[in-house]
């Protein structure tokens, strides 16, 4: 055991490996920050490079890309209100207000960097300590449990739609509807395709994301330019590390989100997008500053960012212990490992312990390098807030088109992006929540497919949802979460009265 760790350290800490790690992480952060370039795309792009290196060196570079890209998405989410990857959509809710309305981009980026690093490190340690046990838990998830988990995710709509709950639910319903377009994968039948080849595949998610967040933001900014004289905000960044007060305030959230993120990561087929929303929701429910959510609450930044980076270590668990990838990114990593003669699966830990420990160390180092990059670049990134709008808006405007087109090389995607951009603009004006639509689209398909799949397994009997304990627990939490606006006020009143009387 000790021998293995020592030889793992010597191979993970070699200069070439560290250099590759720095290159990979840097590239990952840039890829993540660009809307339209996804984590999977980044890993797939750098994947052929791993052939050139021996053993796990190339793999460690890919781990850097993986962690960096998840983190990078938060930078554009905070500064531009445009999530760089779907996993950072929840970060816009509080990150953008803190960076712009409150004029504290340094604080927001510092918090998100700290949270990403903590979440990543936490999940890497979980991977080392609990991998075999967590893999067993993940395997108990069948279609009924996936449905319940997705339903729980959807029920969060009531919590992320800060304004009107009714409008949140309406937005969520729109998202669910968009998710039904295309081939129904369970039966192979067409739905709402009207003979169009583009619609067979459903409306791609990335163009919608860029449309409703970035394009609509551009339109809104152009409008506000007319009656607003640009004032240079007084952004003084005296420190990039979060203050002790902030750390104390978010400590509990940080830990909770990391646990949730790691757990969600280790369930195959789920990822950073659902994890970040669930973490945001839980942070809000447990927070002492509930009212401040949506206005630049530190916990609202820390929760999704630690939650999505914690997915990285979690997703590695089924990949390494079972040979089953947890998401698209780990599927490519699995291939890269196999090229190097490392065969993930139940035998990996006994047959190739040195390689396993090297990968563990690589993941830890990747998160540390990512944090160093983040903290040292905060001052540079923060300047974006002070770029005059007449310069910044055209740049974002072009980026929305480039990002959308580069995603699939399809002009139809660009039209879809523009359409949803205008839709998003008007929905923003009427206080609809974008996050509710996004949640509906992300989770609608998963919920539906697993609902009908579970019924196929039970031959149409609904008892399958009530006889399986994990499934039942998630269903109960979803109902409680969905109904929370109805009883939330009452509970608060009772709580206050009790406090007064005591």
């Amino acid at each position: 055991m000790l021998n293995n760790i020592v030889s793992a350290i010597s191979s993970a800490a070699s200069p070439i490996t560290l250099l590759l790690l720095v290159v990979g992480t840097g590239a990952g952060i840039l890829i993540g920050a660009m809307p339209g370039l996804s984590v999977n795309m980044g890993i797939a792009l750098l994947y052929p490079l791993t052939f050139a290196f021996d053993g796990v060196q190339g793999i460690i570079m890919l781990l850097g890309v993986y962690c960096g890209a998840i983190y990078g998405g938060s930078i554009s989410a905070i500064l531009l209100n445009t999530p760089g990857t779907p996993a950072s959509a929840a970060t816009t809710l509080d990150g953008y207000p803190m960076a712009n309305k409150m004029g504290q981009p340094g604080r927001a980026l510092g918090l998100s960097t700290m949270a990403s690093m903590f979440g990543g490190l936490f999940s890497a340690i979980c991977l080392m300590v609990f991998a075999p046990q967590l893999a067993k838990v993940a395997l108990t998830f069948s279609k009924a449990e996936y449905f319940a988990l997705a339903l729980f995710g959807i029920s969060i709509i009531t919590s992320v739609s800060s304004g009107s709950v009714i409008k949140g639910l309406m937005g969520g319903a729109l998202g669910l509807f968009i998710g039904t377009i295309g081939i129904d994968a369970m039966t192979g039948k067409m739905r709402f395709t009207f003979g169009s080849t583009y619609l067979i595949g459903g409306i791609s998610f990335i163009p919608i994301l860029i449309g409703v967040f970035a394009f609509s933001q551009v339109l809104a900014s152009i409008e506000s330019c007319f009656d607003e004289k640009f004032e240079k905000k007084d952004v003084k960044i005296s420190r990039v590390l979060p203050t002790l007060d902030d750390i104390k305030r978010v400590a509990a959230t940080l830990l909770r989100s990391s646990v949730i993120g790691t757990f969600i990561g280790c369930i195959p087929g789920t990822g950073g997008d659902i994890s970040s929303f669930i973490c945001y929701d839980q942070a809000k429910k447990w927070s002492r500053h509930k009212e401040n959510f949506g206005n630049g609450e530190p916990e609202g930044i820390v929760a999704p960012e630690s939650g999505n980076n914690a997915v990285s270590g979690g997703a590695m668990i089924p990949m390494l212990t079972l040979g089953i990838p947890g998401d698209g990114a780990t599927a490519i990593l699995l291939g890269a490992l196999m090229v190097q003669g490392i065969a993930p699966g139940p035998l990996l830990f006994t047959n190739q312990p040195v390689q396993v420990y090297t990968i563990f160390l690589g993941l830890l180092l990747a998160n540390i390098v990512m944090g160093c990059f983040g903290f040292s670049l905060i001052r540079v990134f923060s300047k974006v807030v002070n770029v005059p709008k007449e310069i910044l808006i055209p740049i974002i405007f072009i980026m929305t088109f480039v990002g959308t087109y580069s995603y699939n090389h399809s002009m139809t995607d660009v039209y879809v992006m523009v359409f949803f951009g205008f839709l998003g603009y008007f929905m923003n004006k009427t206080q609809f929540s974008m996050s509710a639509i996004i949640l509906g689209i992300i989770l609608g398909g998963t919920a539906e497919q697993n609902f009908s799949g579970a019924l196929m397994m039970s031959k149409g009997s609904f008892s399958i949802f009530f006889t399986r304990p994990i499934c039942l627990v998630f269903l109960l939490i979803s109902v409680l979460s969905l109904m929370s606006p109805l009883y939330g006020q009452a509970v608060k009143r009772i709580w206050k009265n009790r406090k007064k009387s005591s």
Partner: protein
Amino acid sequence: MFKKITAVILSVAMGAALLTGCGKGGAYPSDDIEVIVPKGAGGGTDTSTRGLLTYMEKNFEGAKFNVTNNPDGGGITGMVQTAEADADGYTLGAVTVELDMFCFQDKTDLTYESFDAIAMPIGAPAALIVQADAPYNSVDEFVAYCQENPDTVQVGNSGAGAIWDIATYLMEQEYGVTVSHIPYPNGTADIAAAITGGHIDATLADPSSFMTQIEAGTLKCLGVMSAERMTLLPDVPTFAEEGHDLVVRAWAALVAPKGLDEASLQVLRDAAKAALESDECKEYFLSQGIEPLDYIGDEAYQVMADDYAMYKEVFETIDFAE
């Protein structure tokens, strides 16, 4: 000073852009080639196409392959994109066995005739995989178990009407049994998780996603629907050996849109041949759990045409349950 440097860099960049624009006039290929893979990154189609292209690139000078994944619509969108691209050799694509099925499912009018085949590096057979501690140890014993428990054995597939689902229907028809079809539309990784977790009883699918579990002894493979035994699973008999002529293979081929000139096609086929016959490339494929094929040009086209005829019959005779 700074402005001057920027100006120099910009003019160099613009000049370079102009030059690459002119490049297309020379011998093929003189510019980067886009390859559309109609499946997600990391799957068998993607891995084998990227593998083939990596080794083809070594025989090319000055041209690179840029792969884009478009898994939308179960792959229809990406294949249509390739078919509709200019036949100038700068857009190629991968097509999969589903191309021979979609046209019978009213999903598209596209057929294999819209393409010219370059090479077929992969043709994974359907393998019957079950839990290692299951009471059956051969295809016949499994079938007997299905007969005793009609309509209860749960067999995972990667989507209703997709290839592994059809393999299951063909087996039901051949042996006269009925099983319960459970779709996992996100692909074989999800089937692997479900069968390892004990949620389903069996699957008929490409064995590569299950190899680690088979080697670890948690799953076992009872039979493969291929013409010959697989190198990866030398002890597993084919269905044909047991007297049932079932061959279901998930192939993927590198193709060009129809109409590309013969000379350019030959360049691509030669490069693919050199790549697929090299030991490096074969080793790479095996390390990914994929049995490499080396069907070039007409040989690949023949497989595409044969399977088209087979699925035509399948869709005419089997009534797919709603």
